[in-house]
């Protein structure tokens, strides 16, 4: 495979021979790269609130006393069992390190229990040994590749990175060749595929898709992938790592997280929240949602910033620290990443998890500490997420969870939640209307709100996976066209063979509807009028209208 004969030789920088490269990086080398944790923590408190010192979670002395206690295992995962519990009790309390950047922050690591996320490397191996020269590999709907600037593979959705290292080498060569001409590669189109290239810092992400999505949509999906990696490592440490060693093999730090990226890409394909950039709320009576919010508002501890209740992968309620809301709002994209993270590993179903997590849209360079626990084992559909800025707050936050659990039990909330479900489009009472997605902009307090959308269950004829995907592809198509980067539209009415679709964007809402193919235009317009009326009537049930807030700063100052 020598390349000297071809004019393309110049494409391949000499240090890019990804195949023969021998990794000599040692963990200890990396260790030097990673920043002391307090640096990140202070960044983070700055991001949250510069005006209030009370939120600063860091006490420097805590750090220094733990420095020598750091132990890590070969898989670069650090697992902390609680001091009192042996490995057998990990079901009770497992403290997990997701990112390597946090190694030295956690003290007292004794047992090398595989992290809840490293199990995934075994489970996910099914498509790892896929033959990358086979037709079946080529047939995949959408490939996603992540590589470093040195052309080193970091992630491939299908097939092992090793088998694909030459393909990824070519990708990197194309990127850098065009860069050398003072230009930027964007995409390549063939009859079958759209290939989108995106560079984010020292990482290059490539999507090879046969879905006919718009380039902008594919780009947004790659940003989700990048942000999911940032969510685990932070942007600052990724940058630092590659500044120090250009051909570092980032997979070392991401071992076990392939499944998180796999899960993300599956969600991206099947969940419209991602391309709508909005959060899907589970519809419940507003009084019930309010009572849940109150429970969250009451169970607080210093440095707690977000309390989130998720059920069936949809948002139930979210309470936020006041100062945080004033500073910046939680981006739907960050919430999607969190929900994906929880869903990606069954390990979270065991007991309580304490892990550093970065919210990339909030601040890509700092960590939050997430407490994750399911409230309804063994079904594991209702999940509580508590985000703190203090890495020492595990016990305090766990105590909040206990309070929340108690209060919910008293109200029999779990039974209500179990009964709550998405609604049927038939409830709208408009014949010919098969499905819709409605994203309002006229919510109260819009500026600080999470963007939300509502949508009924997909029912017949969209009840099989293929049909669901087909409808989603139609929606994506409408979405891509109406938000065309250079020629946006206000309305699209599309009569296709198997359905009629209408997409409509106004200053107050964004609406996508799907009708039976024989609907007339006047019927469709009447249907939409009725639908808008129905949504207005139901909005308290469908959306979080007034997101609850709390203040932990006063508590913090007391402590």
């Amino acid at each position, binding site marked *: *495979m*020598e*390349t*000297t*004969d*071809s*004019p*393309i*030789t*110049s*494409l391949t920088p000499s240090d890019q021979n990804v195949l023969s490269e021998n990794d000599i990086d040692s963990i200890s080398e990396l260790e030097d790269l990673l920043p002391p944790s307090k640096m990140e923590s202070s960044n983070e408190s700055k991001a949250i609130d510069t005006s209030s010192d009370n939120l600063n979670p860091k006490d420097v002395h805590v750090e220094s006393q733990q420095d020598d206690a750091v132990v890590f295992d070969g898989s670069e995962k650090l697992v902390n069992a609680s001091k009192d519990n042996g490995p057998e009790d990990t079901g009770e309390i497992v403290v997990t390190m997701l990112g390597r950047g946090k190694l030295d922050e956690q003290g007292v690591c004794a047992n090398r229990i595989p992290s809840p996320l490293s199990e995934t490397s075994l489970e996910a191996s099914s498509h790892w040994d896929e033959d990358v020269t086979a037709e079946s590999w*080529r047939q995949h709907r959408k*490939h996603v590749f992540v590589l470093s600037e040195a052309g080193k593979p970091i992630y491939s959705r299908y097939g092992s990175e090793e088998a694909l290292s*030459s*393909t990824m080498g*070519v*990708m990197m*060569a*194309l990127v850098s*060749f*065009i860069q050398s*001409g003072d*230009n*930027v*590669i*964007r*995409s*390549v*189109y*063939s*009859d*079958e*595929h759209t*290939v989108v290239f995106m560079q984010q810092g020292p990482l290059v992400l490539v999507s*090879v898709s046969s879905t*006919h999505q718009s*380039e902008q949509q594919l780009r947004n999906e790659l940003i989700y992938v990048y942000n999911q990696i940032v969510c685990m490592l932070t942007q600052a440490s990724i940058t630092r790592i590659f500044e120090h060693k250009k051909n570092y093999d980032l997979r070392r730090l991401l071992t076990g997280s392939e499944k998180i990226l796999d899960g993300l890409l599956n969600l991206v394909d099947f969940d419209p929240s991602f391309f709508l950039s909005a959060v899907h709320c589970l519809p419940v009576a507003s009084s019930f949602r309010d009572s849940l919010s109150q429970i969250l508002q009451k169970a607080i501890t210093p440095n707690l910033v977000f309390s989130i209740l998720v059920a069936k992968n949809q948002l139930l309620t979210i309470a936020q620290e006041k100062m945080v809301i004033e500073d910046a709002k939680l981006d739907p994209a960050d919430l999607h990443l969190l929900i994906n993270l929880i869903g990606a590993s069954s390990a979270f179903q065991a007991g309580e998890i304490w892990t550093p997590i970065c919210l990339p849209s909030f601040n890509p360079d700092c960590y939050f500490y997430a407490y994750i626990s399911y409230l309804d084992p063994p079904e594991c559909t209702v999940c509580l997420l508590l985000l703190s800025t203090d890495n020492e707050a595990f016990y305090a936050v766990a105590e909040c969870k206990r309070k929340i659990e108690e209060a919910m039990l008293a109200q029999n909330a779990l039974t209500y939640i179990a009964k709550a479900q998405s609604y049927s489009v038939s409830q709208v009472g408009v014949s010919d209307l098969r499905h819709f997605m409605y994203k309002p902009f006229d919510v109260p307090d819009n500026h600080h709100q999470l963007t939300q959308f509502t949508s009924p269950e997909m029912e017949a004829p969209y009840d099989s996976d293929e049909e669901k995907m087909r409808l989603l592809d139609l929606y994506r*198509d409408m979405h891509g*066209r109406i938000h*065309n*980067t*250079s*020629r*946006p*539209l*206000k*309305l*699209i*009415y*599309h*009569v*296709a*063979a198997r359905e009629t679709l209408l997409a409509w964007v106004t200053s107050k809402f964004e609406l996508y509807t799907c009708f039976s193919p024989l609907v007339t*235009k*006047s019927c*469709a*317009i009447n249907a939409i009028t009725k639908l808008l009326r129905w949504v207005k009537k139901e909005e308290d049930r469908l959306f979080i209208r007034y997101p609850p807030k709390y203040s932990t700063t006063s508590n913090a100052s007391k402590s």
Partner: protein
Amino acid sequence: MYLIKGMPIRLLQGRTNELQTHLNADDQSKNGFWNTGKTFGPREGEEEKKILFYHPCEVEKNEKIRNVGLCEAIVQFTRTFCPTKPAKSLHTQKNRQFFHEPEESFWMVMVVRNPMIEKPNKDGKPPTIEYQEDEILDSVYGAVLQQCYSMYKLFNGTFIRTFEAGGVELLIQKLEKFFYRYIQTLHLQSCDLLDVFGGLSFFPLDKMTYLKIQSFVNRVEESLSLVKYTAFLYNDQLIWSGLEQDDMRILYKYLTTSLFPRHTEPELAGRDSPLRPEVTGNLLHYGRFLTGPANLKDPETKFRFPKIFVNTEDSYEELHLIVYKAMSAAVCFMINASVELTREFCEQLDALVGPQLTLLASDICEQYNINKRISGPEKEPQFKFIYFNHMNLAEKSTIHMRKTASVSLTSVHPDLIKILGDINSDFARVDADEEIIVKAMTDYWVVGKKSDQRELYVILNQKNANLIEVNDEVKRLCAAVQ
């Protein structure tokens, strides 16, 4: 408007003489790009030999090699994911590149720059250049590149035939001769949906007149047995053609955008103007040759006609192209190229066709005026439209003003025409009948309808209309068009 300064067109050949027989498309796709060159292509340092044509030619050799290498790399890279459907376009911040493999292993590449906006900076800093990356439609420029090949092939035949006949030297020579002129006539700024269709505009005619024309064609073919194919046009619109559709569509393109515009001036100049070529004693008719002899009476006149290649897929015919015109009526006679055309033949043709065609032209003109009167005075309609029929390649546009040699003027905002192009790309993906109505940010309504191989695109002028009114309007139009 586009800012296109210089548009490199490159033509390259992937294989070399000695290996031609061993190599087929499959071999190439299986072997990774990286070793194609070494095993099959020219040896190292001879990459330049792959390049058959490069415009602008003054580009430095290494730059040419780099750019051609990039094209190969992109094409080969996409074959990783689908061996049979390689890349068609590459989008970068500054430009778009279009790839076309018209004949096996021959690649044509066209690079079109993205339009730029210069944003002035304060403090005397140089202005920031912003590229508008979504202004160019792939479907349009992909079609333009294919058209380049079709036009070349019409006058030169296929690459491979030339290559077999005279080797790479002859091919290079032909390419340079053709494209040097042709590239200057490409007006990329004004390319749009009509280039995607590459359709024919048909002249609307009543049955009687149509029969008259047909009988005229039959009579001439009868009397001049050398004539193999005939095509009849009036007012730059097609009435009758004996050629295959694909050959006719490119010939039509040549006639209407190149040959006819070059010959309009003398006619406009009036009978007594010195510009008008002397009709030398023959005042019985207005017929004259647009190709071949300019003046039959001139003893120095050469009787050479341009040659065209048709049916290149099967019978591969080389023909003389005689274009003869009287007033607004033009006839193309195509005669096997192996026959040598003489002065006698041309005089015979002129004597036979001239008077008849003159008569026919005035007949058609009269009929046309009657029809126009019946349909009433033209008022500004509430809509503009483009219609295209894939079956007979018929196209009609009220969006485009009359095409001239240089630019095709349109009467609506370019963004609206691009929306038409977007809708067309959506239609192209699905076989089924579809209808798309969109409301643009400027509140214009744009409608696209595809049914049974026909496509209709309408831009409505009523900004305040609602969806139902738009629908009614389009229904009325459809009834009128069909």
